[in-house]
């Protein structure tokens, strides 16, 4: 199998990695690096389970082949608190997920974090934009949306 080496910044650390060219980031994280908080399910770009931050944007880890990682900055759920900006992981867990962990929660956390990195005070449409397609039918979607709204309020209070 054709392997290549790339240099990237992963969770705040500069690292060099060697892996097959077409191996996707999801498998690299889980199998080569032991960062198992990013999960996957079916094929590429279908289920919204494998969100990570690439250069500050929420993306699917399953759609990124290894060679595209060259000179990128990746943050996974394990390193999410290295980004100091509001909100931190535990705040999202308590306010948005109401302290309930499921297979999908890490992905929801990444989506919420990505949203707050993109918009300082996301509005209702922004929240829906970020969460649509990421929640599963069994998630408490209304509760999650309310939770994100609460975070927006908290942030605006802090700013004041």
């Amino acid at each position, binding site marked *: *199998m*054709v*392997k*290549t*080496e*790339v240099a990237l910044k992963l969770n705040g650390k500069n690292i060099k990695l060697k892996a*097959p*060219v*077409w*191996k*996707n980031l999801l498998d690299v994280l889980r199998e080569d690096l032991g960062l198992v908080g990013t999960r996957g399910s079916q*094929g*590429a*770009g*279908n289920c*919204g389970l*494998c*969100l990570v931050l*690439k250069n500050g*944007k*929420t*993306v*699917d880890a*399953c*759609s*990124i*082949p290894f*060679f*595209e990682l*060259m000179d990128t900055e990746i943050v996974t759920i394990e390193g999410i608190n290295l980004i100091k900006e509001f909100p931190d992981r535990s705040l999202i867990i308590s306010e948005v997920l109401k302290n309930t962990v499921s297979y999908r929660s890490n992905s929801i956390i990444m*989506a919420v974090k*990505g*949203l707050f990195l993109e918009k300082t005070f996301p509005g209702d449409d922004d929240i*829906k*934009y*970020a*969460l*649509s*397609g*990421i*929640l*599963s*039918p069994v*998630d408490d*979607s209304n509760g999650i949306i309310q939770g994100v709204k609460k975070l927006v309020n908290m942030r605006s209070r802090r700013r004041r």
Partner: protein
Amino acid sequence: MKERPAKPKKQPVTIPGVKSASAAQTIFFPRSIKELLTLYNKNPGSIIFAGGTGIMMNRRSERERGGAGGRPVISLKRVQDLTKVVRRERFLEIGAAVPLSRLASIGSRIVPKTLYNAIINYGYYGTRNLATLGGLICSPWDYSEIITILYALDAQLEIRSIAHTGWILISGLKKADGESILSENEILTRVRIPYGSWNRSYSRVFGMDGSSTYPGAIFSGFARIEKESIEDIRLSFGGIGNRVIRERNIEMTLQGKKIPLTEKDLSLIESQITDLLDGFYKPKDIKETGVLATPASINPVESYRASALKRIMLWFLNNLEYPDYLGQIGGLQNRQSKLYF
């Protein structure tokens, strides 16, 4: 996404073959369109890599078998020129490697409203940040609302190779069998979306599930009504046999007609559209129409799509006189449902 090679920047990431020379795989990261075109010219048939949402899905089995066959890869991530969005007086010009999320953040004042709605409902957060407009257009699956709308709006594509540059209509990009007309060193660089003065626009995704990456079927209609007559009209149908269908003849029939359309007009259109859609189903017609029937084409799902498309189109034509009404009905349901999955 469909683009082509450039000159390697000083050091391309070159992977020496592990077992044999043929297994070697070169990956280029050009920095400008010129570099890109030169590279592609030298390495015709390279894989052009933009967002990855389509290609990674396609490559999955290949990766699992342990390698991608050694075709060179040209990544577009460093080509800044391909990520520009420019607003001109009569059209919006979008670089081929602009991710959908960029268009969403530009907003519905600049991006035509119908198209904007289709974009924010495409896939989900992570996909929209990766998927590029050019990638969507060049992908073998013409299966999204965005493409259907671009067909209706007569979007133009800039195709470049090292030797020449030219513009084509989006409908001319693919042959009847769905294959791209681009030759091995040509690449899509820009997309132009004309601002038409449409005063009726309607787009509707419907079918058996709410996921817009795999919609059931899609109808997009645009019209300009002046003094109770149809000045211009565009109708396009998506989701059938993986292709977008637009028939100029039908639109011509409608042009200049007074609204409301008469029963006679409507039944004429209905029979025309029936012929058109049926053409996609009957294998015997392949030779006559030059249209390839997909293997799935004779199943009930496809026939559901076809007759629902017909109903929705007729409804659109019937309601041209009520612009507000067009804005309300349909579509809404699908949009809301996207929140779950």
